[in-house]
């Protein structure tokens, strides 16, 4: 009887110990915490007139060679610039009425062909301007349709221009195709015969400027990067000297290859992170015609 009492008492104590202190190798735990909040932009309303070109070129001012090209049956597209037509600039433009208190974004679906072999000399390019100020600039040819997202400046009215140009000789003219221009949201790819619409390149407002070292009076380099996980580095180089024609190079810790950008531009953009990368260190330098370093800067993305 005493033996049984001791056994029971011992088990009771073990039970109480386990129950009270939960001494166990098998705990598991859960937790929940809010880690982010997002506010969706509240104004995607359309301010572009005939941005899908269903009404041909109605609503657009034309410059140089521009024609509607409906070869792809469903998608209406406009072709700007032609190898057979010698114009320094080709483009379309439209006056926009905006609410200056609201943020607008411009979605573009485009395809660009540049065959110029002397890109640094002739500066073939496609650019988007608002009131003559570039908001997008590229020299990269695209095999497939690209969907681009461009934040617009806070203005009440503005002239939207899409220009392709060759500032040098007119022997080779870039050709641009535009299938969609809208402030009402991206082109929905479902059911739309654009087989390779590229990912949207998210450009958001620039929030920071990195430091730069100015070594050459009269040379100004501005670096900035937006807060996004598709950060697009944009830079602007200006000079009060017409003889100043620096080259611009970029080096990253992600690979050892130095990218030498072909020439100076009023506005240029580079997609800095992609493929899941979330951090990088880029070193920039501007060189003069004799490869002397004029300025350097470092940009760290984390």
């Amino acid at each position, binding site marked *: *009887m005493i033996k*049984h009492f001791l*056994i*029971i008492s011992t*088990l*009771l104590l*073990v*039970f109480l110990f*386990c*129950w009270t*202190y*939960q*001494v*166990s*190798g*098998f*705990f*598991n*735990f*859960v*937790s*929940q*915490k*809010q*880690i*982010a*909040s*997002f*506010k*969706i*932009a*509240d*104004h*995607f309303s359309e301010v572009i007139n005939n941005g899908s070109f269903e009404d041909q070129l109605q609503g657009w001012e034309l410059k140089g060679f521009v024609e509607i090209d409906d070869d792809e049956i469903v998608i209406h597209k406009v072709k700007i610039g032609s190898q057979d037509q010698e114009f320094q600039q080709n483009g379309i433009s439209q006056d926009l009425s905006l609410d200056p208190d609201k*943020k607008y*974004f411009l979605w573009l679906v485009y395809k660009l062909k540049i065959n110029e072999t002397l890109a640094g000399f002739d500066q073939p390019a496609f650019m988007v301007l608002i009131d003559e100020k570039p908001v997008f600039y590229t020299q990269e040819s695209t095999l497939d349709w690209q*969907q681009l*997202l461009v934040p617009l400046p806070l203005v009440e009215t503005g002239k939207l221009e899409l220009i392709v140009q060759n500032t040098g000789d007119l022997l080779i003219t870039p050709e641009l195709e535009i299938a969609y221009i809208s402030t*009402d*949201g*991206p082109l*929905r*790819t*479902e059911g739309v015969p654009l087989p390779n619409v590229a*990912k*949207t390149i*998210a450009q*958001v*407002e620039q929030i920071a400027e990195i430091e730069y070292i100015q070594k050459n009076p009269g040379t100004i380099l501005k670096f900035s990067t937006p807060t*996004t*996980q*598709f950060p697009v580095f944009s830079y602007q180089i200006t000079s009060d000297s017409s003889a100043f024609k620096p080259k611009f190079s970029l080096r990253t810790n992600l690979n050892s290859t130095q990218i030498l950008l072909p020439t100076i531009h009023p506005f240029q953009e580079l997609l800095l992170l992609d493929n*899941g990368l*979330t*951090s990088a260190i880029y070193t920039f330098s501007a060189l003069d015609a004799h490869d002397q370093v004029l300025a350097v800067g470092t940009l760290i993305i984390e």
Partner: protein
Amino acid sequence: MKIKKLAKTVVVFGVVAALSIGATVAYFTGGAHSNDNVFTTGSLSVSIDQVSPLEVENVIPGGFYQIDFDLTNTGSTPIFAKGYLDGTWSEPALSTQVISVQSVQIEHESSPYSITQFGEALGTEFLITSPDQIGMLEIDAGETITVKVGVKFSETMENEYQGTSLSLSLHLAAKQTVMGSDWPTEF
């Protein structure tokens, strides 16, 4: 006499059985749920730390954002961990299918490494695995790992999402690394 002895035996077995069940219940369900940042029970404790929750305005379709936070094993025993993201719109009728988890990266001693497939839906669990992704990452007592979650808003978001807000929450589960431990059934 035999009946009395038998009765004693039955009583003893009954008490032992009851105590065993009780101890087992205590043994296997030691857990806690907390809606705040830290949960602590027994010898296991994990904290989720951010400098501040990410707050983004003017989100646009196609936007991609990264959320960083630290997980610290503040308990006294090594743990395994897993989690998922959950989203709540200010307008309950809106779908969370327009948000996807593009990447979950872990920074732990070595270089950052990814532990998820590309473009998972909200609610999809991710296991915090080791860098070789063969097994789970053992987070020692006192150890901190950095987690970087990339989320993307779909390009197909329609206009009804304009002006609305989304709250993203991390649901985290942890268990001890000893043999026999199990994940919570819900978290």
